[in-house]
Structures are given as C-alpha cells and as structure tokens.
C-alpha cells in the first residue's frame, strides 16, 4: 500500500478497527504516523477542554426581546394581511347585494327602453307603482323626456296621489339627477299637492 491513509481510516485505526494492510502502512509511513499522533493529541486536547466546567450562558448577551419577537410579529401581520385580502378581494357578493344589483339593472333597462323605444313607454309607466317613483324618474329624465312621456307621467301622478300610495325613496335614481326642466318641476309639485 503506497497511498497515504485518509482521515477516516486514521480515525478507525484509533478506534482499533483497521485492516492489516493499513496497520503496516502506518508503521512504514512517516507522514501517516505524524498525522495519527496529531489526531491523538487533538482528541486529548479537546476532551480536556470539554472536561472542564461547561460554559455558562450569559443572560445579558441574549438578543433583545425586540429581535426575538420579530418572527412572531411577522407571522401575525401576515395572518392579518391574508384575512384582509380575503375579505377585500375574494369575498363573493352577498345575496341581498346581488338582488339589489339585479333590481337596479332591470329598472335601468326599463328606463332605457322607455327613452329609446316609444312603444314601450306605457309598460314602464305601469311597472312603476308609486308617485314618488314616477316623480323621481321624471326628474331623472329631465329635459330628455318627450311630450308623450311627460303626459304619461302626469296621468300616472294623478292616479297615484289620489289613491294615496305611500311613497318609496329610490336613492339610486336621485343619485343620477340631471338638470330639471323648471316647468316640469312646477307642474309635478302642483299635482302632488
């Protein structure tokens, strides 16, 4: 055997576990003998050091509470962020919101048909059941209301005020207010009284 022994082979030799070939190499090789002796010295030194009293931990050298709290704080923030994100972006529409949205769409569709398709105006008028609705619609239509449309509103207002139907507020219509025709406004208020 001409090649020098590896560290593990030297270690196993120190543990009394090696082949005859390795032993004979160790006896004949100066470099390996020195390495083997060095291993023994190191082991004795390390063992001596560890046989002394174990080192104490110094409380003052511990990292401040702030730095040790960081991982937990980060975790809490992440959890809050996930919950917020879920409620903000991924929450499906509630049934009541969906229904309201459908109502608005349907109503606007009817209004649109009333404006752009004269034949269906009557249907829109009959679909509106209260005076307030009609008045609001009229106000919303403003100057764009055709003569036929105005006449229809007048008739409907008369009929509904006489039957004393409770007015219902429709905020989404008032939100879309347009410039009101003063003559129309005056006429509506007279009729309502």
């Amino acid at each position: 055997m001409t090649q020098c022994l590896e560290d593990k082979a030297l270690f196993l030799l120190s543990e009394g576990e090696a082949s005859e070939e390795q032993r004979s190499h160790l006896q004949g090789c100066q470099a390996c003998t020195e390495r083997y002796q060095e291993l023994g010295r190191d082991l004795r030194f390390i063992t001596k050091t560890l046989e002394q009293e174990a080192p104490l931990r110094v409380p003052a050298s511990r990292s401040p509470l702030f730095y040790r709290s960081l991982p937990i704080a980060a975790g809490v923030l992440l959890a809050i962020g996930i919950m917020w994100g879920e409620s903000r972006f991924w929450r499906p529409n509630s049934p009541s919101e969906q229904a309201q949205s459908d109502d608005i769409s349907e109503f606007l569709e009817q209004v649109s048909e009333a404006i752009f398709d004269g034949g269906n105006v009557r249907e829109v008028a009959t679909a509106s059941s209260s005076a307030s609705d009609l008045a609001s619609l009229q106000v919303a239509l403003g100057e764009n209301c055709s003569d036929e449309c105005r006449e229809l509103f007048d008739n409907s207002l008369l009929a509904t005020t006489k039957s004393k139907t409770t007015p219902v507020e429709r905020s989404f219509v008032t939100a879309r207010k347009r410039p009101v025709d003063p003559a129309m406004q005056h006429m509506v208020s007279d009729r309502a009284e």
Partner: protein
Amino acid sequence: MPDKESASFEGLYKVHHPKVRRLCRMLLRDSAEAEETGQEVFLKMFKQYQTESWPDDWSAWLTRVTVNACHDRRKSAWWKWWRSSNGEVQLAEYPSSTRTPEQETLGREQQIHIWHAFRELSGRQQEVFVLRYVEGWSTEEVAKTLAISEGSVKNHLFRAVHHLRKTLKNGDAL
C-alpha cells in the same frame, strides 16, 4: 461491593452529583435546564434505590439515565428556542486552584472555539462524543446505551471529531 458511605443514598448523591451535573451542563445549553434535569435524574435514582433492585454499577446507570434524560429534554424543548436562542458561549469563572497547570495554559479563546464547535454538533454526536471520550466508554457500550449500531456510533464519532479538529485548526490559524 459498595462501602457503607456510598451505599446510602446521600453517599451516592455526594459521589455522583458532580458527574451528573457536568454531563447535564455539557449536553444541555441552558444551565437552569441542566440543573432541573440533574434533579430529575436523582429522583429516578431515589426511586430505583427504594426498589432495592440496585444496578451493579451506579455510575454507569446514572450516566445512562442522565444521557437519556438530556436526550428527552432536548427533544421536548424545541419551544425553548424562544427563551434561549442566540445566547453567547462564555466560559465560567472558577477559582484557579481547581485548574491544573495544563488547563491554565489552554488559551481562553481556543476553549471558546472548541465549546462553540461542540455546541454546533448534533445532539446524537454530542452524546456519542461525551460517552466515548469524556466518560471513556467503549464503542459497544455507547451503542448499547443509545440503542444504535456500533457502525452508527463510529460514524457519529468521526463526524464529531472531524468538526472539532477543523475548528481547533481554524482557531490555531487565527
């Protein structure tokens, strides 16, 4: 046959307490935890003492129980990272009269390097190293106590020795 003093529980405690304490301090990072574990070990010893089925060798029995207690403590103490992480190793100050001239010559920095390296070893590597070199047990005894094969003991030992020697050489180079 144990003599009269060491046969009493107090006698056994007096004889073996320093060793148990040292083992616990070596295998556990926290000194308070080491003290607690030492107390647990002597509680077990007391129970064993009361049964009167005494082991042939109290020293070996205590070493085995201590190593296993420290092993269990380390396994169940993951959460203690919270209160004990990032502590710095610092050698304890002891009266110089307890140190041999050889110990006095050991460089303080080098000792800290070695202790750091020892703390970096895995729990199993620490146990194997302590039992084999500090306690002077045979590979077979270590394997039997830790319930692992002799081959595993040698592998753990080699890795531990390699790491410690590397640190020692780096410390010399500094």
